[in-house]
């Protein structure tokens, strides 16, 4: 394989993983944009969705892509419930309180998973996730391709929802000016619940897609936690397009850094890119 082809392969990998990163960050960013709230247990929501998908596959024989709507709805419900009981009481509070509460939630969810399902690794053996597609010399696994594709479709769907529906527009209005939104007859409490639900549903979809490529374990959320913050901040906290841009940027940075420098340094380089972005644009690439 020539250097050029290897390079192309790297770019492809970066873009594919970037789509999933974007989806993970999107959920966080939607919530932050509307509610000024950071959910540190976002990775644990992904983990729960992975387990839901796994059990539907193992116990009922449902393919992850078929059970996707169910996992998504479950996570939407979980998000909405968390919003009512955990987020609403502390919404106007200082940021440390948000950290505190959602860290509590993180510990709770992570260990309830350990408690019920034990700490064993589980993998979901679909018939297609290990099939390899060849585009010339570039090789892509069907699992990755599917998950990136679904991530992209879901993202576009979400974008259309925000752009075209009354509720979507009301959510955006609330994120810009919650008081005036109230004056326009928008039930802001309901919007918050919906937003948190939607953000969690993003985590739900991401979880389903990750089962195609990644093993499942109670601690799996840890990998997404720091990463999704990095993506959100680089792209611009609270900005829809920012999350997507950030996702692809970080995906590409990771791949290119691994390819051009050394795999061991890819995370350091991601963090350095993160810091540099922040210093040049303190509110992220798309932030205002």
């Amino acid at each position, binding site marked *: *394989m020539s250097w050029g082809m*290897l390079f192309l*392969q*790297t770019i492809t*990998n970066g873009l594919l*993983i970037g789509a*999933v*990163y974007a989806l993970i960050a999107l959920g966080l960013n939607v919530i932050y944009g509307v509610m000024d709230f950071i959910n540190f247990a976002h990775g644990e929501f992904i983990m729960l969705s992975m387990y839901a998908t796994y059990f539907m596959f193992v116990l009922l024989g449902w393919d992850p892509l078929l059970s996707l709507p169910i996992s998504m709805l479950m996570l939407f419900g979980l998000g909405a419930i968390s919003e009512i009981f955990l987020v609403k009481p502390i919404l*106007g509070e200082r940021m440390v309180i948000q950290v505190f509460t959602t860290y509590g939630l993180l510990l709770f969810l992570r*260990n309830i998973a*350990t408690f019920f399902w*034990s*700490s*064993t*690794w*589980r*993998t979901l*053996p679909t018939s297609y996730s*290990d099939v*390899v597609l060849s585009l010339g010399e570039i*090789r*892509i*696994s069907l699992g990755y391709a599917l998950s990136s594709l679904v991530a992209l479709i879901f993202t576009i769907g979400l974008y259309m929802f925000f752009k075209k529906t009354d509720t979507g527009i009301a959510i955006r209005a609330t994120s810009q000016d919650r008081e005036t939104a109230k004056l326009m007859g928008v039930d802001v409490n309901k919007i918050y619940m919906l937003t948190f639900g939607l953000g969690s549903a993003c985590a739900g979809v991401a979880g389903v897609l*990750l089962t195609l*490529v*990644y*093993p499942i*374990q*109670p*601690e*799996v959320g*840890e*990998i997404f936690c720091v*990463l999704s913050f990095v993506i959100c901040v680089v792209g611009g906290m609270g900005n829809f397009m920012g999350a997507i841009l950030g996702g692809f940027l970080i995906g590409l940075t*990771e*791949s290119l*850094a*691994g*390819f051009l420098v*050394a*795999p*061991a340094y*890819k*995370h350091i380089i991601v963090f350095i890119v993160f810091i540099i972005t922040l210093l040049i644009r303190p509110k992220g690439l798309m932030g205002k």
Partner: protein
Amino acid sequence: MEKLSSKEAITKIQAVVVSVIIAIAVIVAAYFAAFPPSQKPLVTEVKIGGIYPLTGAYAVLGRNDRYAIELAVDEINEAGGVKSLDGALLHIIFADSEGDPKRAADEAERLITVDGVCAIMGSILSGTTSTSAPVAERYKVPYVNEGSTSITLTEHGWEYFFRVTPHDGLYCKFTFDFLKWLAKDKGVPVKTVALLYENTLFGKTAGDVWKDLLTQPEYSEWELVADIPYDSKSLQYDTEVMELKKAQPDVVFMATYTEDSIMLQKTFHRLDFECKAFIGIDGGHITQYFVEGTGKLGDYVFAEARWSPDLKRSISQEANARFNERYGFNLDGHSARAYTAAYVLYWAIEKAGSTNPEDIKNALVNLEIAADEIIMPWDGVKFDSKGQNILGKGCIVQIINGEFRSVYPRETATFDPVFPQPSWEER
């Protein structure tokens, strides 16, 4: 302004709830300080502490070790307990290190001073052993370690530290010796090797040892063409595999954790990376999860597994059968060593005929166990002055049709290895 009104709205109920929480916390803390949680010492009981990561990223290992130790202890107790102590029963008190060195030290402190254990077992991770062993040292309580393989652990001059398992230096050398034998036996020359290891304590140690070995004349025939440390908390490992593709080594030596071993194997396949053999050491490659996670793709991988359920040794197969019957899966490299360590400690206590930590330590120092008494493919157990078991050995397995088959050392092996491995297309 809304904020102010919500603050005002902090109700009495909330106030009461908080005060109750605080009150409970204070009362519990006070109770805890006044009456430490110690059970009344039974004369017929030998208390041993077990520090394992029961939660956190390494919880699987902790749980499996705990199962194995519980099995061993139940067997010992059913067979009449410690005979030299009139049949006193072993009682293991498990503590959760959460994989955090700070907590491990904390738990060692608690087990020794509050529960009054006469020996400690633990703690899988070299990081947690590094903090909990000095605590035992300070209180002069023997610490029997089953699976922390970082070389330095026996270099600190700790007198009460006994490591049953061989350390990474030996295991790494063992994989090299195996490859040498393999290449010669199959008549397939090996010229280039690559190292791929995760970049924390476990993988880094292995990487360093391998690199060091490669500089020695014994292995000078092999050329190191790629040295790739990586971060195991990634969602993709494409860059690592691309490095390998660039280097095209004959054999890849790997030290990985579970999820990355699975991801790497899938990526090897996806990016069509071919070589003559993958040789993993411990970590991900020796777990059932690797086999489940990779399915067919995991076949033909060699792993330094420390142990294999198909060892040509009846005592091993019986122990595994009992374990499998009880828990529904096989003993693995970690749990088998934990099982062995529990027996080693029991034999020492039996020999000491005392629950005095000092006596047990002396018994451990002089302990000599023959090869056929233990389930590991070792020459036995005997500690040197540093507390290292010098009779330990490795055990190489190959995954064939999703099963671990032992291939080396030949005395206990039951399978003739496949080398070089078939290409992805041929499978």
